[in-house]
């Protein structure tokens, strides 16, 4: 169910704010879409990965146990043609283990064989000789080693205020691993060609140009020698941002060795063991507040478990720190953070990118402040929430679209929050065996687009050109992993150019065909690249209309509307016909535009001061849960969500993102847990890595609010990650409201609640 809050459909718009069906929907629903493992390739061989069985050790040797199985080929680090590192932020993530192994599941060798079965059997014939070394799993031990990264930012002198303050609240909050569980596991096919682009890889990926860059680096090839294409993608959630680079290099290494196309497709177990996850976090918050609960100073330390290598940990940390103070006003802030190294699989990009962790930290901390001062969660947040013109710890002044209070109002109104929260709190002690109910509130924000000067540096292009049929081809590297970019871009382009969907073409993301408009990450696709698309197509359409006006000056100027070029006399001609005439006298029409950062202050990456994000999307959740007083089983009943999204281009998909993200957050908060024993996964399957099913989902009541962001297409903000931020703190707060149990660590499983109850009883 959804409703519209502060939105008004602008009358003059044709597509924006409507929810047309997505063009890939029927093929996806009927199973016709070709995912990485579906594409038929003649002469295809299959690759398997030989992985480290131990968390830490010296790699003595890798080789065939006996004679090589007939036809099978083995590739180890010794066979690498270039540097042994995947090019991401640094090159520290080995392509194949060399010298040491650093986590269970690390790729040590690759085998290829003519069939899947032969490849599996061949992989079992590879002997890996490892001398075990003591591993580090515990963060307290990891702290004694050098950090992978450290960062700090802040404003003023919080220490001085904390020293003087009457009320100082402290707390430590912890969040665990999370696995992406995209429907389609990772998969990639590679082939080498005698001429043209030398090597071609295709498969499941969010960012064709990341894969491209890392392939160029690993094989020492010129850029034009590498071609990367995205197949249909069965979900990503960030998990197909970093890892596809590795698996693409693996497939290409094997294809080079056997001189045939080779495909590697992980099954679920390999996917869980081998690929990146959400960084576990430990967060220490210390705040000074006045008697009304207003934040006077805040000191935060964020520690992320990076795993054995850094994929994208540095930027995950910086996004975490930039969101650590939450959507609150605080004059003196210090936020420090570091990424620690443990002998577990590297952690990487995951929807929210560090922000969900700190959202849990700050929201639980706000509840701790409320608990201390006896202020209800809504009032406390209303007193502290950012309003337009307030300053973030980076010194950034938040813009007119700052909607924290509107989001709070929306969820509180729909749930009658304060009254019922107070009643539930009073009923905590009446445990007559029947389930107890509670409400929990969270407020959050999410910086849309790349952090800092990422966009400025990338200076991403997107292009539009006329095709011989008189259509506009829109060229960008953005992928659709289910989020709906395919339809949203059609709406933006149709609206901006004044044409119909039939007048538009969208070539598949292929590095041979489309420019590098950057990765499909960071909630940037609609907001940043969508704006490029709008500008490019608008320019093409305008040039066609102007040229037509020159041919028919009597009714000039012409405009393009609903797929027709319309003159002042009201007479019109189909756009495609005019475009074809245009191409009869011109060779081509192609427009490439690049991202233009808004004028004004620039983010300083050394001091971490300035606008870290062009704008923020805002959200608030209220969760209502039922808790069994004896078993402490929790059932999330319903959630009210308010999301301020700038403008909802496609309300149905926008709601879909918010519902899906909220459920993913609730799963992380209540159920999902990677259990490790000596660095080995105890639950590497979907039967044991528990994610919520439809039966476990709360009823979701989403209200979209709109406060246009002038630099986004038709006012849209990026919202893909926003809904991941609020669910976990809201359900945990609701458990507290129901039971009085304070849980500062997720997942809040019944066992963990039980332990909290035992502790509480022994304290009494």
């Amino acid at each position, binding site marked *: 169910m959804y409703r519209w809050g502060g939105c008004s459909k602008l009358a003059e718009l044709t597509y924006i704010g409507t929810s047309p069906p997505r063009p890939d929907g029927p093929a996806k629903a009927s199973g016709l879409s070709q995912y990485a493992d579906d594409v038929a390739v003649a002469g295809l061989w299959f690759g398997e990965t030989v992985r480290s069985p131990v968390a830490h050790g010296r790699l003595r040797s890798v080789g065939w146990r006996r004679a090589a199985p007939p036809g099978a080929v083995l590739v180890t680090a010794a066979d690498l043609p270039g540097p042994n590192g995947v090019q991401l932020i640094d090159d520290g993530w080995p392509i194949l283990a060399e010298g040491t192994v650093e986590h269970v599941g690390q790729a040590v060798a690759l085998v290829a064989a003519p069939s899947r079965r032969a490849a599996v059997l061949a992989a079992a014939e590879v002997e890996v000789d490892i001398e075990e070394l003591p591993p580090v799993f515990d963060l307290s031990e990891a702290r004694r080693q050098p950090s992978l990264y450290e960062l700090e930012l802040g404003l003023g002198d919080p220490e001085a205020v904390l020293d003087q303050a009457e009320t100082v609240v402290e707390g430590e909050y912890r969040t665990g691993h999370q696995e992406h569980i995209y429907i389609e596991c990772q998969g990639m096919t590679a082939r080498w060609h005698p001429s043209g682009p030398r090597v071609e890889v295709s498969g499941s990926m969010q960012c064709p140009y990341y894969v491209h860059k890392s392939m160029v680096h690993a094989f020492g090839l010129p850029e034009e020698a590498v071609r990367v294409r995205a197949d249909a993608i069965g979900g990503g959630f960030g998990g197909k941002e970093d890892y596809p680079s590795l698996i693409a290099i693996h497939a290409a290494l094997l294809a080079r060795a056997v001189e045939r196309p080779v495909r590697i497709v992980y099954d679920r177990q390999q996917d869980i063991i081998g690929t990146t996850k959400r960084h576990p976090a430990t967060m220490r918050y210390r705040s000074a507040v006045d008697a009304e609960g207003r934040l006077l100073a805040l000191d935060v330390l964020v520690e992320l478990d990076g795993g054995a290598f850094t994929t994208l940990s540095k930027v995950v940390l910086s996004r975490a720190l930039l969101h650590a103070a939450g959507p609150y006003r605080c004059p003196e802030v210090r936020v420090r953070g570091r990424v620690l190294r443990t002998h577990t699989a590297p952690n990487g990009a995951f929807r929210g990118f560090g922000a969900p962790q700190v959202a849990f930290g700050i929201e639980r901390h706000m509840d701790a402040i409320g608990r201390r001062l006896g202020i209800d969660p809504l009032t406390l947040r209303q007193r502290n929430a950012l309003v337009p013109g307030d300053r973030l710890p980076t010194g950034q002044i938040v813009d007119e679209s700052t909607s924290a209070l509107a989001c709070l109002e929306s969820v509180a109104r729909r749930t009658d929050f304060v009254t019922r929260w107070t009643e539930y709190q009073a009923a905590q002690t009446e445990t007559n065996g029947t*389930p107890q109910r509670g409400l929990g509130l969270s407020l959050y924000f999410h910086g849309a687009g790349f952090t800092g000067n990422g966009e400025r540096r990338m200076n991403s292009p997107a292009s539009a050109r006329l095709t011989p049929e008189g259509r506009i081809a829109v060229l960008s590297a953005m992928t659709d992993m289910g989020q709906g970019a395919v339809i949203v871009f059609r709406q933006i382009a149709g609206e901006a150019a004044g044409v119909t969907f039939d007048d538009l073409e969208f070539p598949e993301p292929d590095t041979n065909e489309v420019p590098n408009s950057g990765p499909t990450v960071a909630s940037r696709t609609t907001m940043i690249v969508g704006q490029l698309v709008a500008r490019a197509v608008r320019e093409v359409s305008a040039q066609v209309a102007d040229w037509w006006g020159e041919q028919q000056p009597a009714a000039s100027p012409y405009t393009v509307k609903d797929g027709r070029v319309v003159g002042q006399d009201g007479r019109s001609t189909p756009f495609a016909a005019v475009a074809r005439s245009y191409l009869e006298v011109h060779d081509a029409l192609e427009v490439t535009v690049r991202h233009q950062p808004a004028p004004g202050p620039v983010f300083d990456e050394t001091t971490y001061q300035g606008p870290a994000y062009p704008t923020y999307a805002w959200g608030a959740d209220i969760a209502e849960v039922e808790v069994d007083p004896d078993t402490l089983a929790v059932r999330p009943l319903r959630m009210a969500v308010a999301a301020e999204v700038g403008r909802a281009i496609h309300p149905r998909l926008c709601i879909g993102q918010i519902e899906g993200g909220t459920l993913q957050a609730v799963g992380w908060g209540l159920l999902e847990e990677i259990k490790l024993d000596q660095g080995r996964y105890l639950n*590497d399957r979907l039967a044991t890595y*528990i994610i919520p*099913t*439809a*039966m476990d989902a709360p009823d979701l009541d989403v209200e979209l609010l709109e406060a246009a962001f002038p630099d986004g297409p038709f006012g849209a903000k990026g919202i893909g990650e926003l809904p991941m931020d609020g669910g976990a703190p809201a359900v945990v707060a609701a458990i507290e409201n129901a039971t009085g149990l304070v849980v500062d660590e997720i997942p809040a499983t019944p*066992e963990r609640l039980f332990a909290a109850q035992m502790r509480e009883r022994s304290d009494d």
Partner: protein
Amino acid sequence: MIRLPPFAYRRPTDLADAAAMLAGEGPETRLVAGGTDLWPNLKRRHQQASTVISLMGIQGLAGVEETEDGGLRIGATTPLSTVADHPVVRWRYPGLSRAIDSISSPPLRNMGTIGGNLCVDTRCTYYNQSEEWRRSINYCMKAAGEICWVAPSSPRCWAHSASDSAPMLAALEAEVELVSTRGSRRIPLPQMYQDDGIEYLAKQPDEILTTIYLPATSDAAHCRSSFWKLRRRGSIDFAVMSTATTLWLDGHGRVERAAIYLGAVASFPKPADKAVERLIGEIPTPELLDQVSELARRKATPMDNTDFQAQWRKAVAGKYIRAALREALGMDPELLAPKHQAGGTPTS
């Protein structure tokens, strides 16, 4: 990618042929019905098979029908969903529908059969893992290994019974018919099981389970039954503990006869005898049910070999037993559990 190992596959259409094949093909011969347990087990190399005999082609082995004596017979290869949704089952044996509705998910209930569910393999955290995982701990007694990781000094395997229909059918005093080349026999369901995680079936390896019989005296006109299942989610997950209860009351509300069976706490559906004894001849009050649940709970001595920490499971087992008893008597079960599907429509 995990694949099935190679094996010979037979699909007889006649029960006698199937029994002859099973008797003649050697020890590595296995039966398959819906395959929702056997195929994954073969894929993960928990079980081996040189020949697999499918029962799904055998005429007359599936179906639900009322018998002359007023009871019900259910063919072993009847899909779980057919059993649970059968109007007579829903009306006369609601506890059974309830138990079956809690099994896995709708697609698996369409494939899985009632006979397969009664013979389903026992489970354990150290066993239900991939081949590589188990290899890395050098396996365990239940498959290829030497010791039991749950109880290393124990000479036996403690893998637990996983079937949700078994405790309920046992509490409903069901009987089963077993057929082999040596003939057929009909035994009370509990006699089909034994207390061993590896050899969990007392049925002979050459016997085919053909029919499940429910007596007329176990229907809703004669008794009250209830089923509760502990697991993390409202769907898919196996039981971490389940409790099935049937109570026969006389005209004064006094308990004449009772059955309480616990699932997933032992290698077989475990009867709670002491608890049942305490109930007989009494008019149940909430206080009595608390005492009875406590007696039954002592039977539930979970090993640390499923999801959830054993300490927590122990603490909550009584609550589930109590809920089933209270519900059977029309009281509020006073238990919050993940919702699971009932009658094809989600309930809350």
